[in-house]
């Protein structure tokens, strides 16, 4: 098993290199959440099934985990749909543009940090206030999904890191989250194969970047269980 784990190292470098290129060129434009994710789930599910010829016990465990995870992702999709619906309804009710949940002056100052920015119309910070609120809400919703996956009630930094790595439109935030917080995501790499939101190709690079810490692997029995399935998951992806 250690040998299999070690054999994965060469591809780590290769995929990492791909990540750099992908990030720089930013080629992928994600479609609507409601459509493609469903098909992605179906497709990935099929691949998983065909990729399980050996180890009945292992397959059962993996399928059970996959099922639970798919339920969680379905729940997340529902929450996101409700969220965007409520945004429409909420904005329809807006009549007062004086009360913002975020200070316009501060937004303007952040915009001005870019030296190329010369003048800003009065409406731009107003639009940004709303856009930032939606951004915070979406990021928090996706982060909380990870909190629940780990059976916690406190949203932590690594939950945000997980949400960032799983969501294409959040690629520009990757540098903000230190590699320490990505380790948890590596250990939780098994469910990545069933991720409906993030594209499989895009998800892989960040998974491979940080090396697994030996002490972490040795410390917890639960963590020990996960690496057993890692090689198969990588092979399938």
């Amino acid at each position, binding site marked *: 098993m250690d040998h299999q784990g070690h054999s994965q190292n060469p591809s780590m470098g290769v995929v990492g290199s791909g990540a750099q290129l992908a990030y720089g060129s930013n080629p992928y*434009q*994600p479609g*609507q*959440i409601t459509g493609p994710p469903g098909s992605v789930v179906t497709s990935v599910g099929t691949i998983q099934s065909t990729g399980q010829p050996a180890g009945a016990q292992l397959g059962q465990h993996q399928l059970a985990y996959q099922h639970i995870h798919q339920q969680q992702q379905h729940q997340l999709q529902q929450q996101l749909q409700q969220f*965007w619906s*409520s945004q*429409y309804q*909420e*904005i329809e009710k*807006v*009549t007062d*543009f004086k*009360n*913002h*949940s*975020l*200070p316009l*002056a*501060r937004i303007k*100052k*952040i*915009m001005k*940090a*870019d030296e*190329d*920015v*010369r*003048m*800003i*119309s*009065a*409406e*731009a910070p107003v*639009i*940004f206030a*709303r*856009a*930032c609120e*939606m*951004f*915070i*809400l*979406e*990021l*928090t919703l996706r*982060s*909380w999904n990870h909190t629940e996956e780990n059976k916690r*009630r*406190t*949203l*932590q*930094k690594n*939950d*945000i*890191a997980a949400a960032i790595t799983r969501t*294409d*439109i959040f690629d*520009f*935030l990757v540098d*903000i989250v230190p590699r320490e917080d990505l380790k948890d995501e590596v250990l939780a790499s098994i469910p990545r194969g069933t991720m409906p939101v993030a594209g499989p190709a895009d998800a892989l690079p960040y998974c491979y970047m940080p090396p697994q810490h030996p002490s972490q692997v040795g410390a917890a029995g639960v963590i020990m269980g996960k690496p057993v399935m890692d090689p198969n998951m990588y092979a399938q992806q």
Partner: protein
Amino acid sequence: MEDESHNNTLPNGFNTGSPESPFLKTSTTTTQHNKEQDRFLPIANVGRIMKKVIPPNGKISKDAKETVQECVSEFISFVTGEASDKCQREKRKTINGDDVIWAITTLGFEDYVEPLKTYLQKYKEIEGEKLSIPKQMRSEQRLQQHHNNYHDQNNQPFNGAYASSNLISQPPYVPTDQKFSLTFSPNSIQSQLRQQDQIDSVGHWYE
């Protein structure tokens, strides 16, 4: 379960001031802290918004709030950069609401676009109504615009760290809008100049 209430600016100002009071030990510390904080939206506002989408018994760690603060600033810079590039290509000087929405579309945040378009449309309708009100109230509107214009003017020449520090030092003690408005309203020449430029911008935008 969501808490959809909106908060006033004044409470925000109050909340913002409170966390910063421990840093009043020395002026250097205060200045340094304010510089850092000025790059982010207030953590109290961010935390309040985050709570809207987590369960009532859920909690948010402080480092999670701080991480989201950084993410939001990065989001603003990311979108602003894209909008600014577009304005430069089209040889326009002012970033407007449509430019922001265009940039958000280009960067892949499709779900945000329709709500924001509706929001911008409503904003323009309401602001348009304000422009048609009687003269007496219109002068108040001009005062508001004057504040915005002066803020624009003020930011360009004062790029130095010292001037920046001066500006930064104000938020913790008084509401920014109120302070700026009171200080700069008498400058009628400046008001006329900026107003003229504002008209040019609007005209160009419609072309």
